């Protein structure tokens, strides 16, 4: 074969790249940390001052513990705090149990693939939209009761049953579980690809262990280590959630975080101090909840070791029950969200719709005609803010990961903790304080500070969802491309990013959905002037008209879902002739 004559005499070799590039990239991790942690720390300081009684604008100039005494004297405090703790721990334990049992009992099966497909779009449904849908579904005058009335129940008018907003917080827990199961599932699946469980499980089953039993003994410890931080984030979120708790949670008294927001919004300005102290208590409560969870982890690990050493093989019949129960729970929670959204869809076209009619008396476009024209501005604002904050988060994340790749700046496990900090510190604990700081720095009331505030919450999710596939990329591709003469930037742009298009788009979709769902940061930092679908939806929802809620919640869900669909279909379209990238 005539392959000669290719070699050129020129042996000229280019030197290192322009020095500024090399100097800029190593700063990316520090810059990223500052972007995420700066607002959190500033906000906490801004909350600490009024909690100690210092807020000159409202005449508080002394520093002391009087505000905490006032907080402790509030009669509902113990119940509100208990409720936060019980709901948080309950929702987290239940979500984790469902996810782990499903993965243990079904991974690798066709059923599992179906569950995975059903759950993943749920991730993008904003919490508030899911909660509204659920509330309509399970209320005594809701869709389920309507479907069964009066033929099965005999109810001609809805029964006076305390289902939504029950004092034990059960419907709130259900609402949280239906949103946290998809999140933990995604995190667990990511952890599984690293843990390579198939071999361990096959080995265990060959040794006579039943499927779930064997999974828990061989795979779970490694997987749990990977998903521990996401679990903590779920716990912290569930303990301090505001929007879902307003819709589904009890209100005599409400969970502590909701009460804190009520104090922040009370006409009696003196309650701002109590709100700050309550916010710090909320922070302490979350810290205590995490501590308790950690203790339970240690105890479970100890018990698990002894359980493993006993060598029991598990009971197949009992396991079949567990597997079915987990599947049923996951199915119910997914179905609840879908059915709730379907209910909102019907409401958005409804005229009068009385109990026990299963469908409205008349359907029309009236609600969409009425609100449609006013949707344009908030939709545009939502897309702009979501797009910008996601772009910034992607840029920072890619810079960090590329710095790690090129300069070996691999973050330790401690900085991973820092990454989760904005997800673990309750929003009520630092957002009001952050608002004050934003005002002081003149960064206030516009789109730019709102985008920056969104980045704080978008960045961790983008980082978490992109870092795994980024690190899993075969670095020999880099070696080959570089050996072919491509510099690191060219490799990044023409090889690595195109190959990682699917995870990039998925990370962007996750980040965008997070941005779409932000309520408190948008409201507080945007001075109410920055109006997104979510701030409009919550304001309009205060009127309680399900038709308006339906229109806005659906638009909100759609705004979050669209990028997901893009992330699924764009790679399929772009890579339709590239088998190697189609199923990634």
């Amino acid at each position, binding site marked *: 074969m005539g392959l000669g004559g290719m070699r050129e005499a020129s042996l000229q070799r280019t030197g290192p790249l322009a020095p500024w590039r090399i100097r800029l990239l190593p700063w990316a991790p520090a810059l990223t940390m500052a972007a995420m942690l700066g607002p959190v720390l500033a906000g906490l300081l801004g909350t600490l001052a009024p909690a100690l009684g210092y807020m000159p604008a409202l005449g508080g100039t002394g520093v002391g513990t009087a505000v905490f005494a006032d907080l402790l004297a509030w009669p509902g405090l113990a119940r509100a705090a208990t409720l936060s703790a019980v709901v948080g721990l309950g929702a987290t334990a239940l979500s984790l149990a469902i996810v782990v049992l499903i993965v243990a009992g079904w991974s690798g099966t066709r059923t599992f693939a179906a569950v995975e497909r059903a759950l993943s779009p749920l991730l993008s449904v904003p919490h508030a939209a899911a909660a509204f849908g659920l509330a309509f579904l399970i209320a005594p005058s809701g869709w389920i009761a309507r479907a069964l009335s009066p033929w099965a129940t005999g109810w001609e008018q809805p029964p006076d049953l305390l289902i939504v907003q029950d004092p034990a917080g059960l419907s709130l827990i259900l609402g949280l579980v239906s949103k946290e199961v998809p999140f933990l599932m995604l995190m667990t699946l990511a952890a599984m690809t690293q843990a390579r469980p198939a071999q361990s499980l096959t080995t265990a089953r060959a040794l006579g262990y039943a499927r779930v039993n064997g999974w828990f003994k061989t795979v779970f410890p490694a997987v749990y280590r990977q998903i521990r931080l996401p679990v903590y984030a779920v716990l912290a979120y569930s303990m301090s959630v505001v929007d879902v708790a307003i819709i589904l949670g009890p209100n*005599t008294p409400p969970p502590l975080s909701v009460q804190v927001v009520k104090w922040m*919004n009370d006409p009696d300005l003196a309650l701002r101090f109590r709100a700050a102290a309550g916010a710090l208590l909320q922070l302490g409560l979350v810290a205590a909840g995490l501590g308790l969870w950690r203790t339970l982890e240690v105890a479970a690990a100890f018990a698990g070791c002894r359980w493993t050493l006993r060598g029991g093989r598990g009971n197949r019949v009992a396991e079949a029950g567990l597997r079915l129960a987990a599947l049923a729970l996951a199915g119910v929670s997914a179905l609840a969200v879908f059915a709730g959204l379907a209910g909102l869809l019907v409401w958005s076209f409804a005229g009068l*719709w009385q109990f026990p009619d299963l469908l409205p008396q008349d359907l029309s476009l009236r609600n969409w005609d009425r609100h449609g024209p006013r949707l344009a501005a908030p939709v545009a604002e939502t897309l702009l803010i979501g797009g910008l904050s996601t772009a910034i988060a992607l840029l920072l994340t890619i810079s960090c990961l590329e710095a790690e790749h090129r300069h070996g700046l691999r973050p330790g496990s401690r900085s991973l903790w820092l990454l989760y900090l904005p997800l673990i510190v309750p929003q009520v604990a630092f957002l009001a304080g952050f608002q004050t700081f934003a005002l002081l720095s003149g960064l206030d009331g516009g789109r730019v500070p709102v985008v920056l505030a969104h980045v704080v919450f978008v960045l961790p999710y983008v980082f978490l969802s992109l870092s795994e596939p980024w690190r899993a990329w075969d670095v020999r591709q880099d070696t080959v491309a570089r050996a072919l003469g491509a510099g690191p930037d060219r490799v990044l742009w023409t090889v690595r990013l195109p190959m990682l298009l699917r995870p990039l788009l998925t990370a962007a979709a996750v980040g965008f959905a997070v941005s779409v769902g932000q309520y408190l940061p948008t409201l507080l930092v945007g001075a109410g002037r920055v109006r997104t679908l979510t701030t409009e939806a919550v304001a309009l929802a205060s009127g309680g008209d399900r038709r308006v809620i339906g229109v806005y919640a659906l638009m909100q869900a759609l705004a979050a879902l669209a990028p997901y669909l893009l992330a699924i279909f764009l790679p399929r379209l772009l890579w339709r002739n590239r088998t190697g990238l189609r199923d990634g």
Partner: protein
Amino acid sequence: MIRTLAGGVAVLATLAVSAAAQAADPADWSAVLDEARGQTVYWNAWGGSNTVNDYIAWVGQEVQDRYGVTVEHVKLSDTAEAVSRVVAERAAGKDAGGAVDLIWINGENFAAMKEQGLLFGPWAEQVPNWQFVDPAENAAVTADFTIPTDGLEAPWGMAQIVFYHDTARVAEPPRSMPALLEWASANPGRFAFPQPPDFVGSTFLKQALLELAPDPAVLGRPVDEAAYAAATAPLWTFLDALTPNLWRGGQAYPQNGPRLLQLMADGEIDIALSFDPNEASNAIANGELQDSVRTYVLDGGTIGNASFVAIPYNANAAAGAMVVADFLMSPEAQARKQDPAVWGSGTILSMARLSAEDRALFDGIELGVATLSPAELGASLPEPHPSWMVRLEQDWIARFGVSE
């Protein structure tokens, strides 16, 4: 540490504050109009009602066409959000160029902002359309929950508590608090009021207090302990008996007034209340409520008050905000507002002060199907002093709001 922080804060604040706000003087109205042209007024107003949102959108269009003022409706889920905003700005030393230009406000929120010196003015009694307002005829326009407005806020509508019921289920509704209690005991779970400190919920407490207190005269004065205990004892007895028979046995409460509308439409309750005499008619017209619902008032009369708009001390567009407020008090805007097909809220203008032509605007209005005529509505009862509301809310929360 905190001191150092505060020092830094003060320095930053000085830097952040731009040129001091131009002092718009309402006495020189043409100067105000000049200054207002081109301004954008961020009107912070509760956004939970479709009818109100539509009306505000119309106002925005009109002042844009007439005065070149742009209105941005900042939809709030709670008026206190706007108050918080101004407080945060004060805390940060942002004494000009604030984010809030106009607030729909009254009662406690006004009292709090007035007391903290967070309001711009006085201005309200110097704007041109104030000539059509007669405080002698309607005292509510200058006394917000008995607190003198002192020209710091301008009235833009009258509200009065009304009850509404589904005639298909309740033929003859209870027209006094004792009758309501008796009805609720016979029909447990079919009546609800919003959770205090929600505006409507707290007003229900005050309405009951006015009717049940041995000597209602004490309610007009700031609360004192002895009077409070004597005046409220019958109220607590009443609520102790009523609460177990409320919707959900008083273990959960609707969050606000409009939510009652949904509960009524869902058939979960048979009797509800509202601060908007036209709310039921509007909801029926919009297909949100069954047309068997009708409005009624209590035999002893119900509480009424005025809604106001105020301008924060650091508003960025005070001139524009005054122009909007003045337009809200114009006969044209008031007549449109009173039209049940638009909103159906009562006017704050004095018919006697209007020209015949303007009066005709009001005479032509047709009432909604579930709206009471002014005669049926009767004279409204005055609000108690706001200090009563604060105490009532605190005690209600301790007794019922955090119950087992």
